[in-house]
């Protein structure tokens, strides 16, 4: 049931734990290929700050960066995110069924 690379999924969860980084991901979803400065501008972040966030996202495998001349364009990469969602779904299923059975058990007992 718990079949995944714990360290990978930890990186994903950590990367997603920051509002700036989530903002970046959502923007990239709508506007793939944005440059680093285009990403930084609306957040009034300096480039080095944005680079740090992008490093975290990149280490987690959530984005890819490609250099064209002097511009770095950033794109989403969805594999790890999917894994994180599967983690959630797996446990959702586990607990939903278990709790249904728990409820049946205690409610049935009550009527005896």
């Amino acid at each position: 049931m718990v079949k995944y690379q714990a360290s990978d999924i930890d990186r994903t969860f950590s990367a997603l734990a920051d509002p700036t980084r989530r903002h970046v991901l959502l923007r990239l979803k709508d506007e793939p290929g944005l440059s680093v400065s285009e990403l930084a501008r609306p957040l009034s972040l300096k480039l080095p700050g944005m680079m740090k966030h992008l490093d975290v996202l990149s280490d987690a495998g959530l984005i890819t960066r490609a250099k064209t001349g002097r511009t770095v364009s950033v794109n989403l990469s969805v594999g790890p995110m999917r894994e994180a969602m599967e983690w959630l779904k797996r446990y959702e299923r586990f607990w939903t069924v278990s709790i249904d059975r728990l409820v049946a058990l205690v409610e049935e007992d009550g009527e005896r």
Partner: protein
Amino acid sequence: MTKSLPSVTIVRKIKAPPAKVWAAITQPELMMQWWGPDAGPTLSVVADVRPGGRFSVVFRLVNGEEHNPTGIYQEVVPEKTLVFTWDFPEAPERESLVTFRLEPFDGGTDLTLTHEHLPDEGARKSHEEGWRGLLDKLPVFLGDCE
């Protein structure tokens, strides 16, 4: 609220008093009867229900796979709160956290279960806003994630 953590939350209204629900989630012979994600049997339960005590459950799925979640009880307030870690054998330094909260209401118990994954201390502090929000929007874009 820690809703913003990557977490699973399940809420149920149960027509049984908190004492009965508490017994079902803490007594091994009762835990044997419901713990598990499908109709497969629960094979063994260790539940040393006190802070620092250990839990270990072995269950078999209908498909024959066996699993053995283990963890340590963190918080035990009878008929109210039960918190325990759920460890990952592949990464002993990492864990997730399961919380059962029971609230009495007239004629029953409100049960809230949360299972959250705890990436690390730093990450835990910065979860102020919708993690879920992101996940809610992503399926559109992930497309085939189902």
